[in-house]
């Protein structure tokens, strides 16, 4: 199901937004993957009718007009439950729309529901959701990746052509790769974070998930841009990505393959990578990202430190889960509410982050990680003096079985080994499907571009897609 075909059908009168929306709602309710946490039949149909009426009157809001989309459940939606995959926020209804959701609505898109995710976006397998795991659309015994697993599966299983995810260390790209769809992590500051429930503020970015590159580009065009509500959103106007994706050109591109990323790749993975980069006009050259080995540790210190502070507001006092035993002290209310409301991975990261910020350890952990982050960013800057893009697999493996890594957090964290470095550097990276393994499980290729070079990144991704 791709966006352009839907758009053409809508405008030719071959279908209506209501029909597309009904089909998406039915599929979202029927799916056994666990991809959706909330389906908004009433709201979606009302929006679809408005979209149909608009088209009939010639008020066309562009490529997303009348198109059903799914939204990750860490993005606030006015009047519709937002849980962030956590018991803590069960039943919480935001009084406002996230900026990206407001932009979707303004572009005529129809929000059909909220997608499952790892609790507070902490996870790489979608097994950390308080509402049960999401299952892989090809093999239900396997994970879809995470934390935007619900959004990736919603698109991969054809429920919706487009979905919004969020990416902190790989949470859009890794599930997109594992599910065989396109996912972009934009440049840090390219998309507003207002209304995105924060995990790690200096890393979080909202990104599009789509069944093809052009769909992802169209969704990106709608959500990118400045926002007075987010001081970290860049004020520079974004370049048009859909145009770039539809007319990607053929000019030669130098594509860097970081030597540090190749160690430990299986021969199968290596041949997938080589085949994926056999694109007319791509010249593949080795590049050096010398601080790569520090990336995962750096990420877990910084992201957990920020998370420990970002999640302090969930104290049971003003909203969300409150556990108050008879005669409980204030301290008891905090402890009991947070212990009952947060799952084990969230608690682990809050403790890790609190420790990394505590007096006497700040320099050794947060301070050192902050310097490592700058060294990693400098690696990319140096590499981009020589190449146009940097390529790798998105994930070192295809989808792994449910439960395979839950007992070993470190093995789980290494799922994001290729996606974390560009997140630390704040750079745009896209994952494009590049074939399947013997079991039919998808592989994804990751391309990373310099900051704010999303348009050329989409163009290159379109060339990878076209050469398959």
């Amino acid at each position, binding site marked *: 199901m791709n966006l352009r075909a839907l758009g053409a059908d809508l405008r030719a009168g071959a279908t209506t937004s209501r029909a597309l929306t009904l089909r998406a709602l039915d599929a979202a309710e029927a799916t056994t993957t666990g991809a959706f946490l909330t389906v908004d039949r009433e709201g979606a149909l009302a929006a679809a009718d408005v979209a149909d009426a608009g088209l009939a009157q010639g008020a066309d809001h562009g490529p997303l007009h009348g198109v059903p989309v799914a939204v990750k459940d860490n*993005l*606030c939606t006015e009047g519709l439950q*937002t849980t*962030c995959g956590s018991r803590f*926020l069960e039943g*919480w209804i*935001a*009084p*406002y729309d*996230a900026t990206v959701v407001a932009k979707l609505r303004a572009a005529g898109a129809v929000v059909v529901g909220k997608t499952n995710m790892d609790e507070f976006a902490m996870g790489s397998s979608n097994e950390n959701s308080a509402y049960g795991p999401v299952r892989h659309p090809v093999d239900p015994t396997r994970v879809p990746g995470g934390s935007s697993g619900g959004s990736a599966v919603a698109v991969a299983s054809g429920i919706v052509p487009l979905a919004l995810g969020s990416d902190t260390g790989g949470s859009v790209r890794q599930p997109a790769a594992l599910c065989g769809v396109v996912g972009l992590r934009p440049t840090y500051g390219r998309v507003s*974070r*207002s*209304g*995105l*429930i*924060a995990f*790690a*503020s*200096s890393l979080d970015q909202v990104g599009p998930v789509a069944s093809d590159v052009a769909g992802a580009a169209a969704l990106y065009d709608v959500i990118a841009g400045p926002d*007075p*509500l*987010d*001081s*970290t959103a860049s004020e520079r106007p974004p370049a048009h990505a859909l145009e770039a994706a539809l007319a990607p050109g053929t000019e030669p591109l130098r594509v860097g393959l970081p030597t540090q990323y190749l160690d430990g790749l299986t021969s199968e993975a290596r041949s997938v990578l080589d085949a994926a980069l056999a694109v007319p006009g791509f010249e593949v050259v080795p590049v050096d990202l010398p601080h790569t080995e520090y990336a995962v540790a750096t990420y877990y210190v910084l992201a957990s*430190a*920020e998370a*420990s*502070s970002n*999640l*302090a*507001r*969930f*104290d049971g*006092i*003003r*909203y969300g889960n409150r556990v108050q035993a008879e005669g409980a002290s*204030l301290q008891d209310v*905090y402890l009991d509410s947070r212990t009952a409301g947060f799952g084990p991975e969230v608690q682990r990261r809050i403790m890790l982050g*609190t420790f990394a*910020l*505590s*007096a006497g350890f*700040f320099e050794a952990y*947060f301070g050192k990680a902050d310097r490592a982050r700058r060294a990693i960013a400098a690696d990319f800057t140096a590499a981009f003096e020589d190449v146009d893009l940097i390529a790798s697999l998105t994930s070192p493996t295809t989808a792994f079985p449910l439960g395979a890594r839950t007992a070993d957090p470190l093995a789980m964290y290494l799922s994001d080994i290729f996606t974390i470095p560009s997140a630390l550097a704040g750079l745009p990276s896209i994952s494009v499907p590049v074939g399947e393994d013997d079991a039919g499980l998808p592989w994804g290729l990751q391309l990373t571009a310099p900051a704010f070079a999303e348009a050329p990144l989409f163009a290159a991704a379109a060339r990878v897609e076209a050469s398959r």
Partner: protein
Amino acid sequence: MTWEAVIGLEIHAQLKTASKMFCGCATTYGAEPNRQTCPVCLGLPGSLPAVNRRAVELAATLGLAVGADVHRRSVFARKNYFYPDLPKGYQISQSEHPLCTGGAVSIATDAGAKDVRLERIHLEEDAGKSSHAAGGSLVDLNRAGTPLVEIVSRPDMRSPDEAIAYMKAVHGLVRWLGVSDGNMEEGSLRCDANVSVRRPGEPFGVRTELKNINSFRYVGQAIRYEMKRQIAALEAGEVLRQETRTWDPPSGTSVFLRTKETSEDYRYFPEPDLPPLRLDDALLDAVEAALPELPGARADRLVDDLGLPPYDAGVLTADRALADWFEACVTGLQGPDREARAKLLSNWTMGEVLRRLKEDGIEPADLPLDVAGLVRLVDLVHGKAISHPIAKQVFDVLWTEGGDPEAIVDARGWRQVSDAGPIDDAVRAVIADHPAELERYLGGKKKLFGFFMGRTMGRLEGKANPKVVTERLRAALSDLES
């Protein structure tokens, strides 16, 4: 051997902005609880802060006024702690890289003027307000997110009086600059005091942090109490521990809160939701251009230009609205004897004007008295057209009804009588009416001169020139003695 206090103050002043530090909610005092709130100041999931530019301008204004370095780049940081009236579980403040460092505030001491040096001035947001009752606790988040500056002094004060003088100077300055309304009853200005004692010349002692001081009176009381407590302990041979105490006004004592060892670890780190705060040339130039003449400079000018005593200049520049009003009066002083008339204006302002303001509970900014009116009144007094008691009556008319002093005087027949004729008539009549008093006076009871003086002035309805009356009365009585 005596003890000496070492005192540093951390003053929190609420910035005079229409909206909060990081959102558009109003900062009006006294609204219905939790009505001036939005997702940002309620700390709802997904909300993000955006810096109030006006708050930055006001803090920079204060920085320039105290001669601090106002940094082009400063960094917001999170101060993490749990409390029900702190909606995000952290306060956005500034830590390692504050907006301003250095600078000083001048205070008057018995030994003359003294500079209290400043460590830093930084921007932060206020917390909400908790009230505790028997049935539980209530939280009002109207105040949450209100912009504050924290003004941190160096430990330069050596007595409670110096601390009071410093707090008053800061209070006067932020009001003068329009940076804060300084309303202490509403909590717009409050302070924490760091207090230690030592023998003069010795190194600093172990300090106590006193919290919750919200008046000039309490700053003196709290420091005096703390000095006594520390001195008693030291003289008893005890070793002090670094601790935090809170001032409890009803009991006039401080209450132990925590020691340094058990103090909260605030886990400061740079606020990732806000990029470093950058002040561009345009902002700094605009702030500098808008910086008003400072009270010290204004006072110097009153002394230099008008020959006013420094005491007068200090009183007249304690409040900017009053100073501006006085300045406007001075501009109206034309013609000869400018300095003498300026001194008269100063006397009237420091005396009657301040008295009436206080009696009527009016702020200097709302002074009802017409500038030209007081100038004309002073001219009449200076030209001896009216007597001092009459002038006070004219002042009261001007204050309540306004109008032209000369017209008031003429309409009421209050012009001063200096002609010998009518005065001599009155003197003769008074002497004739009081033969018994006259006899005692002539018999040596010279104090009775005042009695005759008063009766004569009364007979002339207070309009007579007292100097002429004195002369004529003295002459008449000495005629009778010879």
